[in-house]
């Protein structure tokens, strides 16, 4: 039987959700107008006042916010509550050189933790579970968010944070952890390590995993589910909006329910900013509905996504988003073909390569070149040159059928691809266009 953390909210009728959103949006816009001069100015430039926003149907009139605005307004420019009411900040890793600092009142943290509790419950979690949080704790939202959600559900929470794989596995085994929360790549790594230690899926006590904070493919889900013997659920979020839990997967495992009582999602054309109808692929835009310290109206995520209002087998009524299909800012156009690094990752994982890769795009004699660099691993290596080159050819063929492009595959020395703490640098575009 499907469990819900807040059933009356999660299974509310579309009319009820619309009514909540209408009412909350009006209040949120008024709050922003009163407390965030930066956004008030953007509204004034469009000739808008809070009176122009009477409900969700007026949302499209409001100006967008982007990472650019967050950087401009850094650090306090978008804060919507007086300092005396704010109790916490969280911050992004800043891999793109744009550190985002988000603020929280106690109310904001409560709502955020509720969202995470819904995700844990949707993954089958109850107060009988032992939930190991292997996301980083600290400025990163992963650890604190799921930690709070796990407390709300009543799980016995193991705050291992990230790293120290041996200790992670010791806790999973000794304390019989049943739910694991971490990034999908770390889950895959834990799985591989446990396999090497000779642990079979039926010896591993885990039954579910909640994995997010980075893009992962359906193939990766299958492989994690098999090695750990669990159900793997996706979770979505942005520090700007609170953190993980903005949307989460349910038992249907085919898209994430957006917590529509806290956020309105829109899909827009990234070029024109025009709102696109349901089922159309475009850029995902979020509006917070009841945040105090860091309210954001029409925040452009750069995530390419599709929304679906189709009825879900789990009984939840909130709109579903697909896994982000890439970013409006990491889509590569190579020889006229749209390429998402996630597609390349899918092929690599399908063929048993590690997720450590780098994509180098260049332009030689007016033609784009695509070089996929993969690190040699002890598993792939043999003393037989022919075997290695034929695997290389298979990879080239696999990439061609996925992308419709011929890529060069280069095998490089282990650990030669730079690793950053957290998110890896996947794409190097050397073209001067």
């Amino acid at each position, binding site marked *: 039987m499907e469990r819900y953390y807040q059933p009356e909210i999660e299974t509310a009728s579309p009319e009820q959700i619309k009514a909540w959103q209408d009412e909350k949006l009006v209040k949120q816009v008024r709050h922003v107008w009163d407390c965030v001069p930066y956004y008030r100015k953007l509204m004034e430039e469009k000739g808008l006042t809070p009176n122009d926003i009477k409900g969700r149907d007026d949302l499209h009139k409001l100006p967008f916010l982007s990472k650019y605005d967050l950087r401009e307004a850094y650090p306090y420019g978008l804060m919507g509550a007086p300092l005396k009411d704010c109790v916490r900040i969280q911050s992004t890793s800043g891999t793109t050189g744009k550190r985002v600092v988000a603020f929280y009142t106690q109310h904001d943290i409560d709502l955020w933790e509720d969202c995470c509790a819904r995700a844990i419950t949707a993954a089958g979690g109850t107060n009988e579970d032992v939930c190991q949080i292997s996301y980083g704790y600290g400025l990163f939202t992963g650890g604190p968010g799921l930690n709070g959600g796990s407390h709300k559900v009543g799980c016995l929470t193991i705050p291992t944070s990230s790293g120290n794989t041996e200790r992670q596995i010791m806790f999973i085994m000794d304390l019989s952890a049943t739910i694991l929360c971490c990034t999908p790549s770390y889950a895959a790594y834990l799985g591989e390590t446990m396999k090497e230690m000779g642990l079979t899926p039926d010896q591993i006590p885990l039954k579910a995993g909640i994995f997010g904070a980075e893009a992962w493919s359906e193939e990766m889900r299958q492989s994690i589910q098999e090695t750990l013997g669990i159900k793997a659920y996706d979770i979505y979020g942005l520090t700007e909006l609170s953190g993980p839990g903005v949307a989460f997967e349910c038992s249907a495992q085919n898209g994430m329910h957006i917590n529509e009582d806290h956020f309105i999602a829109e899909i827009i054309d990234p070029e024109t900013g025009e709102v696109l109808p349901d089922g159309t692929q475009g850029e995902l835009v979020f509006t917070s509905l009841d945040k105090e310290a860091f309210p954001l109206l029409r925040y452009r995520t750069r995530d390419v996504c599709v929304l679906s209002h189709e009825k879900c087998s789990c009984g939840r009524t909130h709109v579903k988003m697909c896994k982000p299909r890439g970013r409006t800012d990491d889509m590569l156009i190579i020889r006229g073909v749209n390429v998402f690094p996630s597609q390349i990752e899918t092929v690599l994982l399908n063929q048993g390569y590690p997720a450590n890769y780098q994509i180098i795009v260049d332009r030689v004699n007016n033609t784009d070149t695509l070089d996929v660099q993969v690190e*040699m*691993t*002890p598993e792939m*290596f*043999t*003393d*037989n*040159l022919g075997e*290695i*080159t034929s695997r290389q050819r298979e990879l080239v063929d696999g990439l061609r059928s996925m992308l419709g492009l011929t890529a060069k595959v*280069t*095998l*490089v*020395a*282990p*650990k*030669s691809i730079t690793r950053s703490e957290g998110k890896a640098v996947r794409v190097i575009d050397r073209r001067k266009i």
Partner: protein
Amino acid sequence: MSVKQISVFLENKPGSLLKMTQALAAHQIDMRAFSLAETSDFGIARLLVDDVIATSTVLSDAGFVSSLTPVVAVEVPDVPGGLNQVLESLAEDGVNVEYMYAFVGKGAGAYMVFRVADTYRATATLTARGIKLVDQEQLEQL
């Protein structure tokens, strides 16, 4: 009777072979034999050394991927037809040679190293024909 060859993955770019020999030199590893197979972007160095375990550790600490492969080391009579006689034996018994390379010992002997699909069979065939094979212990003394 086979000996252990260490195969090492190398990128085909300036300095990558040097990086390997530096690591080996720093740890006083003595190479008995060395050969290189390459494509345009990577190569495989194949080594016979005095201390296999130490070498594997040194290489892995220096960040190289390597593997151990059993190969057959044969003392080849240094006379016309010496190699021919060894190959005849292998061919007659249907043993396919994947690759081979040669080295000389500190004394007068000449040696060939064979990578074959079936090491056990190759060893039996050659021994039956009175061809002298080198084992790991002897290799360390060469």
